[in-house]
């Protein structure tokens, strides 16, 4: 009887809404992850850029005062993130550990030089800046040689540019897919009710009155989908932050909050507009056109 019919109908509705909610949630989730990537792209690329090492090899004759002074002036300059003095004994230890054999055994002495490893701030990791800095250091008479991997720097800068461009393109495509997918789910739901909509018009309901429950229904699905997406994003963010704590993904809570609010708002806005357009389409049709 009535109650069973109602239950059946409710179950059917829930299963059909489930796919709508799921598609909204998935699309918003992906979009949110991309948003996170965009927000943190600079941080991630900076993180890699700051791994670049500029090594200043010191002459054997360099006095300790001179070395210390160079270290100090480097540490104070605005383009340096950190410096590390590596004595030739330390260098030998490192090399031994890397190669697994003691080369000093067959060379007979330590051919390595004292050096200073300089990590630069990300903004200065370009070949021009590096050249300038290395020239400056090399001009000192106690400095033997300055080296850095110029190819790596160029490659990195190129890739960062390429990757940011593609991330933007992919975000754009995803946004488009989001709108299209949500839109088509909603259009199908509204299409299945087109005769109901027409009947409502026949008994004197205004377009606005008919549209309201449809919009409200879709927005509710949009909200549920958005909440699911946000939970997914929060979980991913939590684990990423735990695994790559050096990236400091959560260091800017305002931006992260904005991203979450934005994804939520997008869920509402997209469903709202799609439903509005979809219902409007059927509201404007004459009865005879519904059959096509």
């Amino acid at each position: 009887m009535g109650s069973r019919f109602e239950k059946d109908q409710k179950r059917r509705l829930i299963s059909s809404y489930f796919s709508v909610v799921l598609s909204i949630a998935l699309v918003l989730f992906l979009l949110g992850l991309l948003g996170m990537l965009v927000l943190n792209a600079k941080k991630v690329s900076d993180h890699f850029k700051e791994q670049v090492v500029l090594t200043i090899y010191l002459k054997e004759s360099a006095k300790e005062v001179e070395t210390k002074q160079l270290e100090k002036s480097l540490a104070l300059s605005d383009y340096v993130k950190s410096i590390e003095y590596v004595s030739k004994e330390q260098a030998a230890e490192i090399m031994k550990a890397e190669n697994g054999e003691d080369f000093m055994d067959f060379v007979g002495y330590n051919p390595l030089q004292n050096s200073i490893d300089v990590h630069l701030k990300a903004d200065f990791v370009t070949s021009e800046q590096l050249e300038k800095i290395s020239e400056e250091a090399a001009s000192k008479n106690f400095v033997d040689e300055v080296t850095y991997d110029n190819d790596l720097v160029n490659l990195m800068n190129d890739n960062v540019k390429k990757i940011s461009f593609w991330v933007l393109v992919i975000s754009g495509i995803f946004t488009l897919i989001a709108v299209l997918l949500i839109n088509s789910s909603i259009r199908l739901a509204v299409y299945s009710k087109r005769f109901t909509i027409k009947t409502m018009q026949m008994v004197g309901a205004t377009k606005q009155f008919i549209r309201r429950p449809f919009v409200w229904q879709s927005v509710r699905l949009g909200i549920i989908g958005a909440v699911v997406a946000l939970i997914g994003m929060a979980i991913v963010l939590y684990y990423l932050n735990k695994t790559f704590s050096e990236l400091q993904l959560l260091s800017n809570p305002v931006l992260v909050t904005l991203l979450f609010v934005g994804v939520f708002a997008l869920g509402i806005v997209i469903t709202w507009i799609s439903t509005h357009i979809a219902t409007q389409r059927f509201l404007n049709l004459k009865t005879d056109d519904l059959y096509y």
Partner: protein
Amino acid sequence: MSKPVLQLKNASIYQGDSLVLSNVNVEVNKGDFVYLIGKTGSGKSSFMKTLYGDLTLTEGEGHIVEYDLKTLKEDDIPFLRRKLGVVFQDFKLLTDRTVNENLLFVLKATGWKDKTEMDARVEAVLTKVDMKTKGFKYPHELSGGEQQRVAIARALLNNPELILADEPTGNLDPQTSIEVMEVLQEINKNGNTILMATHDYALLLKYPSKTLKCDDNQVYEVVQRKG
């Protein structure tokens, strides 16, 4: 004398681009019961659709319950329909809700606010069509005749000045047709104006009244011969 509820002068009815009826002159006065007969495809439904704003009137003059069909705006259509009661061949009840909810939807859609008034009105119209005890049922749980009676009840909700019935008995068996017809007759006796399209000539003989015929792109009045 009061103005006619429905008046068409030299009207042409188009279905899409094709002319269905031309030079239509029709007048329906308050309290009338008028039949509109004709073969399938003679333009009865298009005629009805023009009256409730589902087709636009482009040629000739047309006045219906204080609305000018020629200058009828899209936004006015819902308000025109509130002054009409439309009954369809296929009932057109909202299948996803009960009879009561169907009727309440119409009341809410047409601006009723007070819950007790709405409930009272629903009960009143259901009583008129003798369906008071079935308000909790879904349309698919009712027979065709019962559904049509609910549809008539729905048409009565806002005390319409004119009821348009487009083949209300078209989907019903002869016995049920007569039951529905009795309901319409009863409503007409209470003062409601009814324009009913039909091809059921048995009903015409049983309940004779003013009759218009659609034939050969024309609408003209026919006089029933008794016996």
